[in-house]
């Protein structure tokens, strides 16, 4: 492959990787603190994309659309915690896992009931692609990459630089110990679900901006998101972000070899390889067995 093609693929891969990183971060946060793989993450993203399109149509501004999508999805995530996931405390992870699948279906069906299956899209001002060393970059892609990167950094900053983030990590490391030392679970969980919602929302809007908005868009990103979360080490959000970006790059760069259809198969293969070789993830610590 020529250098220009390679560069183009790398740019596309980086953007795809940032998207997967957002979804993977949402999954990983939930994995780390609430301790189950949240299968509704993808449909949070779908919801955000639809909310964004609707809000943009209503206000006429892309920025307002995106902002309302983030607010609404964060609200949705918090509501799903309060109404559903909160009630599973002390039960095995099977229950919230199944409920998250149910929630995914419920969200998607409510969307399709009212909006149908037609594809929608954001209105994006058309602009010329910038050509740089043979790689064509759309301005919108730069915006996408920038916004995703800023969001990822912001979430990690909350996690690592604020008191509530520190408490969140304490709960992630050792829930019993954290409970014993009197960490107030409620504030932690509400912040957690706000972050999960915000991450998914930015990811969903970005995904919608990049292509089109369809009901299955988020569900289709679930597999790479899970792969990123596992690859990065269960309960290691930074790892999930790095793994997500790497996954996007690998998927894109392998396109000439495996073709477009089997792109997602790459995440599956990497997922399996991780489980076989390093179940604790590339960057994770071993999980104590009790």
């Amino acid at each position, binding site marked *: 492959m020529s250098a220009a093609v390679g560069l183009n693929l790398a740019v596309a891969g980086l953007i795809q990787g940032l998207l997967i990183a957002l979804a993977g971060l949402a999954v990983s946060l939930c994995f780390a603190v609430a301790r189950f793989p949240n299968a509704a993450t993808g449909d949070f993203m779908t919801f955000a994309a639809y909310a964004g399109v609707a809000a943009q149509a209503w206000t006429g501004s892309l920025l307002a659309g995106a902002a309302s999508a983030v607010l609404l999805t964060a609200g949705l995530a918090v509501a799903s915690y309060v109404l559903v996931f909160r009630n599973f405390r002390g039960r095995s992870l099977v229950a919230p896992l199944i409920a998250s699948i149910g929630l995914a279906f419920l969200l998607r069906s409510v969307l399709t009931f009212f909006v149908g299956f037609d594809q929608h899209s954001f209105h994006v001002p058309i602009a010329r692609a910038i050509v740089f060393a043979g790689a064509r970059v759309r301005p919108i892609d730069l915006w996408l990459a920038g916004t995703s990167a800023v969001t990822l950094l912001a979430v990690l900053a909350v996690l690592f630089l604020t008191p509530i983030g520190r408490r969140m990590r304490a709960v992630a*490391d*050792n829930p019993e110990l954290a409970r014993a030392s009197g960490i107030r679970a409620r504030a932690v969980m509400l912040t957690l679900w706000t972050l999960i919602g915000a991450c998914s929302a930015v990811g969903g809007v970005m995904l919608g901006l990049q292509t089109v908005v369809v009901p299955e868009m988020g569900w289709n990103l679930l597999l790479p998101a899970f792969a990123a979360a596992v690859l990065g080490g269960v309960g290691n959000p930074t790892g999930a972000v790095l793994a997500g970006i790497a996954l996007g790059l690998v998927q894109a760069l392998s396109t000439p070899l495996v073709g477009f259809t089997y792109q997602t198969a790459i995440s599956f293969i990497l997922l399996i390889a991780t489980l076989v070789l390093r179940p604790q993830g590339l960057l994770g610590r071993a999980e*104590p*067995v*009790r």
Partner: protein
Amino acid sequence: MSLGVHGVNKSFGGLRVVDDVSFQVQAAELTGLIGPNGAGKSTLFAVISGFQPADAGCVRFDGHEIQRLSAAARARLGIARTFQVPRPFAHLTVRENLLTGARDQPGEHVFNLLCRPGVVRQRERQIVARADAMLEFLGLTRVAGERAGALSGGQQKLLELGRALMTEPRFILLDEPYAGVNPVLIEEIERRIRTLSEQGTGFLIVEHNLPALARLAARLLVMDRGRLIASGTPAQVLADRAVQEAYIGGGP
């Protein structure tokens, strides 16, 4: 036959819970392991029985290093353990809980179910007889058909002991066998343990009921904050200043 730990260390997220512990326990010498709450006794049990990997050090059974073996393999080798908080199979009956502990049931392989049903049935009869005897001994016959999850805490404690005994162990680690068990039964269990011990089964027992343990044990080991701080006969150990201070000083 003996069980030894040598230089075992175990930390949880920077907190050193077992700190360079070494000792050897002879099967012939019933041994107790005591120490205040949080001293690391249960964690040490988990390391010995293979439920927690040690950060450093090794575990020897009968002269062989066993720390690379899985928990199941160690149990098959003859090291049984009970859990401090009983972990019964809650949806199985009490009798089934005991049956699950029995070793060498070919019926646990689907192949044998299909091809050697006669052997399976015959072995099952033997196991059921043993389980019923165990139920009788533990005073659980009356609840044999009930779901184990429905038992009281004390009864679950007994079931835990029974299930471990069903594995025909050569060495048993008991984690607070008397907690929640009524005094009459404690004496009963004591007698049973003594009998087994005389027949050659090794015991290492963690127990907070010191008088009961002192009656039983030939030797006591004392842990405090992850370290082994004393060992000797019960009389020696209980008179030891460091031990008394550890207990009075309280936990971590």
